[in-house]
């Protein structure tokens, strides 16, 4: 249903008014012509945007024209520029720039209209047509809905008691409206296994499951939830979800795909922030402008890795200066990535298409896109040095700034010298003043060396690869040499760097009702002020997108599908919320509370909605009805069965094999051998030694290579850091089966796991008598699936182990659907 509306050409405003006159009848030629112009031209040629300097609002602006002169010459069809522009040649016309050319009938109407003198409807001023629906759900202000009163039926009370949380009331309200009800609560061991994977991405031990299953305390579940949320493993698990969204990786991507040795502090920052339960507002502000809003804090600096998380075109920056078209393009695309990453990650709005034209489906003007680009106009992606001690930071920055200055002066002198042909010209042309150059250079060299010495006296700074004012030399000089002044950003006609238009001023988006998109910055503001203003706009309690976006992302990771199933697009090409009131209630509660994700998790996972069983009996009338009404389970009449993500599979295999190294933080580990690092590093995954303990850490600490994803993780649908991934694909393919069957990690760990099982069962005080293979197999099955094997299953496994050994059994266990899916 949700797709249907958008294919209807919804055109609001004047179009509706003049639409009736679209009959092209000669008796109302002016209105017919105006309707054609509005439909095809006004989007760009209006009073505000004036593409090519031309507005087509009314007859005066048409005859006044733009950069190419008058658009029409009343009475002279062939002398009218407009007709030239819209008349196709070989099936293509200059205008409109996109889509098919105007129809023959429309062009004929315009020709007749001009020939007849181009009369204009009295007082008509055209406005751009919009396809956006002003009632689209995400445009509505965020208002906290009342918690619905629902009648708990006898059966519900019997299963659940009366103590349901507000989430359940919202969900139940819609279930009951559809004649559906909750499924019973999942069996306790199933529930605990689900909770472990969901919150920390690792399996529990059978003993932990036993203990929980046997715990008589009515608050045992809540205690387990708290225990898992308090585990540092929680931050590692949930940071990965955020790193997917912001497309973090440890190499640049593009040509050469060089490593980023200092990207990881940002990854650690995210893990730390989630583990600390940092308020979301602060989490946003730090990532966009932490250096400005939280000066003197480590988090405020390391968070800026967000701005640089995406790919970077090394060649387009290092080898091509900004003065060239390709250099301009590289920097334009670089800022584009920063803009999209910021807006899409925090507000779930797609904005990239507004770089060429107004957003087709959402009320986002091209001008606003470039307003956002100008927020980041001073930045590049580079290693940002920092000190934990703010005094040291100050001292270091002063010295470093002087050093850059000195080196630039020396560089300039060197180039002057080179240009003049070196020493041979010195005596031939006294005007050149080579001696002056020598004198100056000597003085500068002395000072530069002294300054350098002072710098080396300080302890070395730490670095984080981040969005920063870059102080460089050569093609990639950044804005540092100009004092970090933002580059001039102009609105690019059709997104083309060779067609700069009007100057853009920094600002945000105007589509949030009640939130000012203008920054009102003083003329002498600096680049940090722009980012701080954007950060405040993003984190404002009035920003309805921000709060809906994050609660929806969290919901999605608990249920597989968000309340809005397009978590990166709340615009009109995206989905409708399945539970609109619940979404708004959660967003408001979250915003108005402590804004810690942990609180949000707690509400969700303690709800009846979350604690339902996923396995249902298809023969029961309740399930049959639910299947016929809501087979996709959007209303949540049962819990979804989830497939383990790549990280959980890898980490669990390592944990079960007792090889998982839980060391936190620091540089990422390699699962490849780097060959030919000097030009374009070759990342040879096929040469990796799977026994190397350095690579036995949690997957979130992998050194992620953009140009070549790790084959095993890739086969299991890990996120591709070249794109912002809000929700991973889930595929089943023969290549995936081959990966889990044959990958070196699975096979080495199968052997380690077998060795562990042998030892563990042998030394267990609970060992009941003989040490037969059946015991090892039973233990392995229990650990891998969280369930005791049935006798029949155990028979089959025991027969296999007797013939082929325990390592082969472990390999089979890692390939079980019951391991890879969580009920």
């Amino acid at each position, binding site marked *: 249903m949700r797709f249907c509306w958008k294919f209807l050409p919804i055109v609001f405003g004047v179009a509706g008014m003049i639409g009736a006159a679209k009959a092209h009848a000669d008796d109302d030629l002016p209105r017919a012509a105006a309707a054609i112009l509005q439909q095809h031209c006004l989007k760009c040629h209006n009073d505000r945007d004036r593409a090519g300097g031309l507005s087509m609002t009314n007859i005066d602006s048409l005859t006044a024209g733009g950069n190419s002169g008058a658009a029409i010459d009343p009475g002279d069809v062939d002398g009218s520029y407009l007709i030239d522009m819209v008349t196709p040649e070989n099936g293509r016309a200059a205008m409109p720039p996109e889509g098919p050319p105007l129809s023959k009938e429309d062009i004929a109407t315009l020709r007749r209209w001009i020939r007849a003198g181009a009369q204009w409807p009295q007082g008509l001023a055209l406005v751009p047509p919009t396809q956006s629906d002003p009632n689209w759900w995400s445009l509505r202000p965020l208002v906290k809905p009342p918690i619905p009163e629902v009648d708990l039926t006898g059966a519900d009370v019997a299963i659940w008691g009366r103590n349901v949380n507000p989430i359940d009331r919202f969900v139940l309200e819609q279930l009951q409206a559809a004649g559906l009800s909750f499924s019973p609560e999942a069996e306790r061991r199933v529930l605990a296994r689900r909770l472990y994977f969901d919150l920390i991405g690792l399996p529990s031990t059978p003993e932990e499951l036993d203990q929980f299953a046997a715990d008589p305390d009515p608050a045992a579940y809540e205690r387990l939830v708290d225990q898992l949320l308090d585990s540092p493993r929680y931050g590692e698990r949930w940071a990965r979800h955020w790193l997917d969204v912001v497309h973090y990786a440890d190499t640049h991507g*593009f040509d050469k795909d060089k490593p980023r040795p200092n990207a990881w502090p940002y990854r650690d920052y995210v893990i730390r922030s989630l583990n600390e339960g940092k308020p979301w507002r602060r989490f946003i502000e730090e990532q966009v402008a932490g250096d400005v809003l939280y000066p003197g804090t480590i988090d405020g600096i390391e968070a800026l890795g967000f701005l640089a998380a995406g790919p970077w075109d090394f060649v387009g920056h290092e080898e091509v200066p900004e003065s060239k078209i390709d250099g301009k393009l590289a920097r334009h695309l670089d800022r584009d990535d920063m803009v999209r990453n910021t807006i899409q990650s925090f507000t779930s709005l*797609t904005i990239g298409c507004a770089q060429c034209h107004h957003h087709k489906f959402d009320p986002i003007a091209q001008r606003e896109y470039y307003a956002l680009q100008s927020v980041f106009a001073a930045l590049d992606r580079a290693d940002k040095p920092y000190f934990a001690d703010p005094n040291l930071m100050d001292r270091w920055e002063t010295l470093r700034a002087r050093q850059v200055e000195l080196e630039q002066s020396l560089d300039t002198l060197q180039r002057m010298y080179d240009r003049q042909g070196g020493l041979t010209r010195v005596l031939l042309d006294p005007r050149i003043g080579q001696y002056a150059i020598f004198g100056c250079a000597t003085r500068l060299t002395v000072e530069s060396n002294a300054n350098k010495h002072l710098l080396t006296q300080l302890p070395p700074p730490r670095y984080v690869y981040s969005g920063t004012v870059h102080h460089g030399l050569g093609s990639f000089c950044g804005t540092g040499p100009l004092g970090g002044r933002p580059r001039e950003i102009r609105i690019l006609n059709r997104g083309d760097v060779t067609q700069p238009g009007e100057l853009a001023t920094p600002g945000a988006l105007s589509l949030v009702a009640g939130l000012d998109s203008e920054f009102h910055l003083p003329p002498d503001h600096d680049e940090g002020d722009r980012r701080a203003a954007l950060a405040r706009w993003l984190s404002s309690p009035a920003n309805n997108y921000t709060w809906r976006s994050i609660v929806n992302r969290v919901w999605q990771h608990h249920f597989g599908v968000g309340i809005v199933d397009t978590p990166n697009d709340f615009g009109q090409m995206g989905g409708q919320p399945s539970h609109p009131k619940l979404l708004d209630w959660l967003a408001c509660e979250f915003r108005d509370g402590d804004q810690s994700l942990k609180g949000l998790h707690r509400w969700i996972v303690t709800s009846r909605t979350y604690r339902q069983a996923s396995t249902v009996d298809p023969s029961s009338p309740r399930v049959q009805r639910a299947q016929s009404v809501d087979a996709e389970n959007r209303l949540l009449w049962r819990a979804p069965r989830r497939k383990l993500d790549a990280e959980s599979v890898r980490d669990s295999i390592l944990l079960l094999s007792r090889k998982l190294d839980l060391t936190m933080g620091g540089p990422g580990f390699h699962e490849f051998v780097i060959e030919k690092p000097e030009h374009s590093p070759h990342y040879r995954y096929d040469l990796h030694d799977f026994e190397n303990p350095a690579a036995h850490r949690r997957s979130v600490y992998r050194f992620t290579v953009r140009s070549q994803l790790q084959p095993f993780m890739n086969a299991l649908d890990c996120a591709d850091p070249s794109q912002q991934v809000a929700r991973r694909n889930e595929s089943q393919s*023969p290549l*995936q089966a081959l990966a889990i069957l*044959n990958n070196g990690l699975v096979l080495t760990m199968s052997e380690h796991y077998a060795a562990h099982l042998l030892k563990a069962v042998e030394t267990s005080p609970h060992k009941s008598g003989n040490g037969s293979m059946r015991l090892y197999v039973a233990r392995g099955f229990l650990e891998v699936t969280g369930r005791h094997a049935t006798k029949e299953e155990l028979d089959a496994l025991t027969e296999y182990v007797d013939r082929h050994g325990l390592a082969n059994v472990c390999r089979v266990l890692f390939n079980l659907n019951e391991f890879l899916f969580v009920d």
Partner: protein
Amino acid sequence: MRRRSSLCANTLRIATHSRRQFLGQLGGGFGTLALASLLTRDALGDSGPEADESAACRLPRPPRAKRVVQLFMAGAASHLDLWDFKPELIRRHGEPADFGEHVEAFQDGLGPWKQPVWNFQPYGQCGKMLSDVVADLGPCVDDMAFIHNMVGKSGVHSTATLLQATGFSLPGFPGMGCWISYGLGSENDNLPTFVVLPDHRGFASNGAKNWDAAFLPSNHSGTVIFPDRQPPMDDLFPHASGTFIRPESEADAHRLLAHLNRRHAESHPLDQRLEARIQTYELAARMQLAAPEALDISNEPQYILDLYGIQPAGTEWPSEINPTEERDCFGRKCLIARRLLERGVRFVQVWSGNDNGFPRRNWDSHEDLERDHGPLALGMARGAAALIQDLKQRGLLDDTIVFWTTEFGRMPSTQGGTGRDHNPFVFTNWLCGGGVRGGISYGPSDNIGFKPLDRDHGTQVYDVHATILHLLGIDHKQLTFRHNGIDRRLTDVHGHVLSDLIA
């Protein structure tokens, strides 16, 4: 032709879309032929309001082509020294280059005009002029269609390679083969639908980003095959560390897994993924048999090996680049490509040229064009010609498109030495087979091969992609996937079918 109201047309498109997503989930080839027929029916008989109805653009029925092999020259192969004969450059050779306008060269050096390094001679009925260094393709020219006015968007390798490979200048978009895999599925479930044969000396710019599925389901990614590595594709066989695995344990493992997984699926009804996953293991086992067979050229007759320029396995090569080695390495990939196409692989991408490092085993000849382009072109032409002739003698050229491309061209001037700088303003592509009109040269470049003769109407990658999809029976505007709020296409919002290229 039956017309529908726009609402109906779009409703059907939605149905197609979600069905496609459902099928995509299952991976491999489950029902993908059904999808292909759905798509083509949608685009053909019931042309919606968006469909281009001009006669030239009507989709061929049945489709003219079923599969594609793309030959990608990494580093940017010179159109001027291979395909696009410019006598004017011979006349002006050595004179200071005056382009008559400001030119931004990638590396700044705009030395004197440079004539083609090799002589050109006419071939075939059409009299196409080819450089001596690609003379091996002479017998094929009457089947080939050259496009001499290709224009790019950037002179930077990475973005330009992405543009030609994926239709976008940024990483994060599916390769052309992914889209075709997604649209048409496989003809053989036992082999990957889209296979990539990289230069064994390294990946080109952007590595796997040129063939990754990006937002499409991951089973549409290009599967990288290095025929000389063991295993030739990732995880095809147990890793060397799996010493405990024996053929008998393997067979029993498959049986045991199927048994346990089936029991699990039975106790967890209403979840198709569980059964689908069981089937992927059956397909995997079949792939383990099918892939090595497809990659084994040891039973190819000697005349075929000679046709492709393949030397005996284990031949030792000198450290300098040389034609015999280049023929061998490109020829092997072309022969394997033929074997894969024969067995139903939908799209094969063959790369010539590694990353743009040194010593050059790539087409990025800034320093010495003759040194690099010579052996690379001799090798490429031999393999490409053999592939075309071999496909033809097997009757496969009729429905197989051979598509030669590169990221951009090279400048008509030197850089001061004996190389040429990047030229994104014009370059050459060629197509052959699969319904392509042979013996033509389309869209001339100007008299020095600097820009298209008609500067306002250069051919773009979108047009070539649209044409290839068209020959495969797909309307490029209909093959979409919604991602982050946009219905993405291989051709973005562009693309015109080049009807002049269609036989």
